[in-house]
């Protein structure tokens, strides 16, 4: 019991956000006449958060490093315009177009990283400049017209589902269920292996009871998601993309030297430098990653709408930054988690989605989003003993 308490206490912030999500879901469940938690709507909810989730995962690294990227919205729009142009007007092979677009995103990161990491300009200014530059480039690429690429493979990236291997008319979506089962299995096995390894090192591990409880809860959550997909149209491809990216970025942040260096730089740049961290290179790579993920986000976004408009992605950076902050990322640097930002993105998407079902307009939505952002940070700030 004591152990359970201390585990809960340590992760109190993430639990608050999870509880917030559950409360928001419960409210919408009752006010929308149960529509909110219907399988179709849950899938929509996840589809809605994909592009924000992809970009905000890397925004966490940018902010942990002590910087900010205000240009994400424009870069999302620009990447969408670029790939739409390549597909429609240049008639390019879709895979090649994807590759070029991602590469262009990385180049954007090289450009911003140069000014921030090499020249030492504030990221705020560099990326504010890019915000305008790339908005201009969108207009240049699209010639002020909305482009609809109409490419089947491309569209699938934003709105497709994995085909059901049991056949299109089968009662169960076997693909979703098998992948879901494999995910749970992989999760449980990896946890057991890591626990046994810890035991071999003679470290303290949580008691078997708590360990099984933890496995059960997470497995149920994973199971719920895949069961839901089974009930609906199947596994959405963009959500798979999001999941893979989250998994990868989370791994990079927590388990690579590069990721740990990012946290060190944000926490104390001078100490990091004297500890042998190459601050310049690390910062630069973070910006390249950000550009890459902005492009990925732009691709998913454009594919979902099957259209690249000149206003695409306008203001998206505020949602992306807000998701990171609601998820516990500190704008002052040094603190934040990728998992947190996904919870943050889910909170935002839930509000947006639920209020839409209730036929509320932009008036209520902006109000709600603004206040949730404020209260999320306020709760975090007020429940902490000190600044650390």
């Amino acid at each position, binding site marked *: 019991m004591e152990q359970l308490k201390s585990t809960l206490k340590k992760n109190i912030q993430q639990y608050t956000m999870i509880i917030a999500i559950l409360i928001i879901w419960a409210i919408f469940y009752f006010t929308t006449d149960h529509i909110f938690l219907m399988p179709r709507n849950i899938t929509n909810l996840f589809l809605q958060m994909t592009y924000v989730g992809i970009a905000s995962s890397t925004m966490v690294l940018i902010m942990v490093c002590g910087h900010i990227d205000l240009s994400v919205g424009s870069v999302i729009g620009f990447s969408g315009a670029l790939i739409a142009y390549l597909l429609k007007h240049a008639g390019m092979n879709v895979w090649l177009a994807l590759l070029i677009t991602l590469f262009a995103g990385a180049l954007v990161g090289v450009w911003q990283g140069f000014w921030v990491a090499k020249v030492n300009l504030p990221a705020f200014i560099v990326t504010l400049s890019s915000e305008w530059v790339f908005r201009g480039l969108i207009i240049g690429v699209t010639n002020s017209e909305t482009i609809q690429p109409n490419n089947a493979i491309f569209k699938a990236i934003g709105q497709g589902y994995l085909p059901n291997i049991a056949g299109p008319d089968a009662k169960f979506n076997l693909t979703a269920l098998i992948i879901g089962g494999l995910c749970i299995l992989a999760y449980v096995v990896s946890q057991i292996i890591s626990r046994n390894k810890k035991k071999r090192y003679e*470290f303290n591990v949580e008691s078997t009871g708590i360990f099984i409880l933890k496995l059960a809860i997470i497995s149920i959550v994973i199971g719920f998601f895949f069961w839901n997909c089974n009930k609906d149209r199947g596994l959405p491809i963009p959500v798979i993309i999001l999941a893979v990216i989250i998994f990868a970025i989370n*791994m990079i942040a927590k*388990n690579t030297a590069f990721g*740990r*260096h990012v946290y060190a730089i944000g926490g104390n740049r001078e*100490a990091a*430098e*004297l500890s042998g961290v190459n601050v310049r290179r690390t910062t630069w790579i973070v910006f390249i990653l950000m550009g890459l993920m902005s492009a990925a986000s732009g691709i998913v976004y454009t594919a979902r709408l099957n259209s690249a408009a000149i206003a695409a992605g306008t203001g998206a950076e505020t949602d992306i930054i807000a998701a990171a902050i609601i998820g516990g990322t500190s704008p002052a640097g040094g603190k934040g988690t990728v998992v947190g930002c996904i919870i943050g993105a889910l909170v935002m998407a839930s509000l947006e989605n639920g209020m839409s079902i209730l036929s509320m307009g932009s008036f209520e939505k902006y109000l709600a989003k603004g206040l949730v952002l404020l209260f999320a940070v306020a709760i975090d700030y007020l429940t902490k003993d000190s600044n*650390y």
Partner: protein
Amino acid sequence: MEDYILQMKNITKTFPGVKALDNVTFNVKRGEIHALVGENGAGKSTLMKVLSGIHASSSYSGDIVLNGEVQRFNSIKDSERQGIAIIYQELALCKNLSIAESIFLGSEVKGKFGLIDWPETYHRTSEHLKRVHLDLNPETKIINLGVGQLQLLEICKALSKNASLLILDEPTAALTDDESERLLDLLRELRSNGVSCIYISHKLDEVFSIADTITVLRDGQTIITKPAAEITKNQLISYMVGRELSQMFPHVDHTPGDVVFEMRNWSVNHPQIKEKEVLHNININVRKGEIVGIAGLMGAGRTELMMSLMGAYGSNVRGEVYYNNEKIKIQSSADAIKHGICYVSEDRKRYGLVLMQDIKFNVSLPVLERLSRLGLIDDNELIKEVDGYVRDLRVKTPSIEQITHNLSGGNMQKVVLAKWLMTNPSIMILDEPTRGIDVGAKVEIYNIVNKLVQEGMSVIMISSELPEVLGMSDRIYIMHEGSITGEVDRSEATQELIMEYCTGIRTMNR
């Protein structure tokens, strides 16, 4: 009946899980200098925070009686209004303001229409500056002042607010002996004018030279309050640590081997003022298994020398570095680490630790690549190694997942040492390794250093405390104004000799 300006009665203050102050009684007589001493974590700072109102009156039990009246302070403003002024270790002045602006910050002299009356402000500032014997133009910007002047300015600011009780927390930590002496003189003068003073310091010589009364705190309790004349230094130390410290510096005779590290003809210019040379043609070497001390007064360029070696200071850096008789090039700390050289900064909080992160994070930071398999950090191996060093160095912490910000100065220093030991260095440069660390932890640090040297490591130790340099080093270089003025062997080293080199009275023909 004694005339007390301040009586703190039965003060008890608890933090979650810790009793920081346990029934503390602390009385200051009017017009005396009262030294408050104790190891780090003894409760000195907490007691002063209670007194100055930083800890609000509802958060502790007990009474504060000032001039015979019970006070309930809820903020620093409250205590200031009653004539208490606290002057911090880290000075709290805005660098971009002028002296006059700083002194009257928050209580500006208003003239017509509520606008600031500048002539009057400057006039009054000059008057205040005279009281502390600072001969400066009131329009001088704070950024242009030295540490010693800043310290006096802080006192000046306090006096301008009619403070009758000054609290000084380690005021001489960053001062040269000369500046310290000036400060102490000023305090004596203020005492004769009726100003009372609470003096917190680790430097026992100073305490004995200035204090009328001494109170010792240990583990949140008052151990003793006695007139300074009735207590000896050894007694005082034993009150502080609860045990006699017969041997402060456990010097172990080393048998140094060949020269492993050498800096030749090292000259460096100022990082901003590029035409100004700050380090002049420096030559030093270290042998295997040797402790080389670098003595010098504040501003002699010792830290700059080592920071420039690490590629973290200066412009137009000239000279050569040899490691095992091979010329090497160090452009960043990362290069140095590769060659087995590490620099332990004097400023742990600023250059040593990522305070918001835990021990594990900090200790493993320089060696994450080594601990990675296929790009992923092997967490178990990492914990095993970190835990090993944390145990070896006896860091006092419940776990290696403790946030370093919560550690005491001595434990922070051990964490920094553990971090560098992870890199498996052969040369360790220690810059003021025991600054701000209590007596008990100091001895532990000395023992660690001795053990490392016996295992074959070479140590360069910068220290401003002469007894420390003399007690620890096998050989001592002395710096003065950016040059090496002397090199003295342990056998011939005396405080007087080193001081002569430090002040430039004596220089060696080199």
